[in-house]
């Protein structure tokens, strides 16, 4: 291509770029997509599913016939408002409007579902069940996504995001405590299991905590070893990678044999609660899963510390321990906390499977629900595990932000 034709092309390219930029400035394509999805879902899918009892599957009921017109109109109006927000000029104003409307829509949508539940209960008696329908999930998930997207742009600091998330969650919790949601099938399942719910949550966290107590020191040491002995890196990470590829159920299963044999050989172990099934194999398996991300995070973090800084520390007369604790670890902290976040979220999810070998935790609701074909019990376990993971994620992100404040980015 000659220079002349290049020059001739330039204005055309510029014009098309400008046009694209202009379109971006006008509409938020992702938000447009979300709102379109919401409209289609509300128009064609069930907002709740109503069943005569807990076991039978329900019949889909669209929003407009599930709730009183006022509630339906409120949800509809908020969806329209979100659509308007998607079309206004980009900028902080659009993000603010999106965030507020999305938060309101999320809460209104949950409230409407609760309202639908109360109407069904009043109509068909206490055995009838109201489950959440496809349209509910699409609107709730869509507004949660829009909220996260907008706040991510408005307040990128993890602490600010945690505060916003906490505010929305406490509004939803207030709604739940007020009793407005109590007639939803999910809430009924919760009410039935209220006596054990707290204990299972604690048990779930204890399993994760137990696995962390094993994986953090061991993985940390492995990471340091990988750093100091380049020759060990490949076999070490190769082995840990292999562990990650074994399905969790297989590991849980594989541990049953040796651990029961061990407990059989040394009965006092049984008094400590160690056996082929239960918490011990679960914690061991979860520890094994935690090793790779922690070892790799430790290695990557420590390797990211600039060589001259380590060199200067050694030259000043810090010993190897002091270099590790005073220089390397503080400087690697962002990466270390990020690795911890990954591990905690991953283990919170994996621990669900541990219920299969009798370790308890939130997974026990899921497996009971599967056994009884009670979808909402499954949902109770799954949603609780997700919320737990999200809380851990936000908390650790905030911790990371606090620990690294005032650092160069």
């Amino acid at each position, binding site marked *: 291509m000659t220079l002349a034709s290049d020059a001739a092309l330039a204005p055309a390219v510029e014009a098309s770029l400008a046009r694209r930029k202009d379109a971006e400035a006008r509409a938020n394509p992702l938000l447009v997509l979300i709102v379109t999805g919401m409209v289609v879902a509300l128009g064609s899918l069930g907002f709740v599913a109503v069943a005569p009892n807990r076991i039978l599957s329900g019949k889909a009921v669209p929003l407009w016939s599930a709730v009183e017109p006022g509630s339906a109109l409120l949800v509809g109006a908020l969806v329209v408002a979100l659509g308007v927000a998607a079309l206004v000029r980009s900028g902080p104003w659009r993000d603010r409007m999106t965030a507020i409307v999305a938060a309101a829509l999320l809460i209104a949508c949950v409230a409407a579902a609760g309202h639908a539940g109360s109407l069904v209960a009043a109509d068909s008696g206490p055995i009838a069940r109201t489950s959440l329908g496809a349209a509910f999930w699409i609107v709730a998930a869509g507004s949660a996504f829009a909220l996260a997207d907008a706040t991510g742009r408005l307040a990128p600091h993890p602490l600010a995001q945690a505060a916003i998330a906490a505010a929305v969650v406490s509004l939803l919790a207030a709604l739940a405590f007020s009793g407005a949601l109590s007639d939803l099938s999910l809430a009924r399942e919760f009410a039935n299991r209220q006596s054990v719910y707290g204990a299972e949550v604690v048990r779930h966290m204890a399993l994760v905590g137990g696995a962390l107590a094993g994986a953090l020191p061991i993985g940390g040491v492995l990471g340091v070893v990988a750093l100091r002995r380049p020759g060990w890196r490949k076999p070490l990470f190769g082995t840990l990678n292999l562990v990650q590829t074994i399905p969790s159920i297989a590991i849980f299963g594989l541990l049953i044999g040796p651990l029961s044999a061990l407990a059989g050989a040394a009965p006092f172990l049984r008094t400590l609660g160690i056996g082929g099934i239960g918490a011990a194999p679960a914690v061991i398996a979860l520890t094994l899963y935690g090793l790779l991300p922690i070892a790799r995070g430790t290695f990557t973090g420590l390797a990211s510390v600039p060589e001259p800084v380590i*060199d*200067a*520390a050694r*030259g*000043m*007369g810090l010993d190897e321990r*002091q270099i590790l604790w005073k220089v390397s670890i503080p*400087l690697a902290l962002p990466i270390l906390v990020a690795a911890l976040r990954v591990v905690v979220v991953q283990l919170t999810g994996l621990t669900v499977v541990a219920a299969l070998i009798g370790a308890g935790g939130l997974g026990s609701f899921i497996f009971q629900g599967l056994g009884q074909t009670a979808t909402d019990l499954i949902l109770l376990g799954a949603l609780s595990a997700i919320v737990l993971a999200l809380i851990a994620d936000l908390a650790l992100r905030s911790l990371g932000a606090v620990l690294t404040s*005032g*650092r160069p980015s």
Partner: protein
Amino acid sequence: MIVLDRLTKHFGATTAVDQLSLTVPTGSICALVGPSGCGKSTTLRLINRLIEPDGGRVLIDGTDTAGLAPVTLRRRIGYVIQSIGLFPHWSIARNISTVPELLGWPEARIEARVDELLDLVGLDPAQYRERRPHELSGGQQQRVGVARALAADPDLLLMDEPFGALDPVTRDGLQAALIDIQARTGKTVVIVTHDIDEAIRLASLIAVLDKGRLIQQGAPRDLLSRPVTPFVEAFVGGPHRGLRLLQVTPVGERTDYGNVTSGEPIAAEATLDVALERMVAGSIDRLPVRDRAGRQGTLSLADVVAREVTGP
């Protein structure tokens, strides 16, 4: 006194330091000069045992350093690292107080020392104490690196291109500060530099290295007037060897004390380049001279340029 005795270090196939023997008397400044990659930094790091030699010994005041605990040894030796290497997560004050803290100095003494050193390197303590390294310019960071090395008042100072990133004025100031500190405290300093003028100004002993070997060592004047190889001649002198000789020759050596000229006298201890500069500035070819004892004499332009014997 530091004695390097047939010091040798290999990195794989490269010999970074090759049978290097050098004696740096207590209370003197020794400059290591030579082209990039000739082993200057490696030599410094062999002295504080950041690197262990493959052969040879380092003696400090007669003690073989191989027998000392490296950590203790390093806390006694100030070290300015070539790549500065400030701790990015610590304030400037904390960076400077690294070694005093390791040595367990009381807090008040550390605080006072930090302020003193910041003043010395020309950074206002009130303004810079609490800053982080990334909030400083490269030259300012380098000065903090020098302050950090001086913090615990070590008898021995190893400086790896400590003034490389500084503007000429700041560099002059810090060189003067170093000369002053060294004269007051009698520190032994080994400084690596690419700048031969810096070496001439600071050092009483210059060691020229090439490919890990010591090619020539001696006082700046010896090197300039009697370089042993064309390499040394080119390295220390180049096209400016004559001018640099003026920098190391005192006026008193060329003064005719039987002859008195009027005017503002120049000190006999000043160097010829200063005298020449005054002649050029004043368009004169004679300068009155006065030495410390009060003796008077005259320096003529012919004396400045005539009598030096150069070449090997």
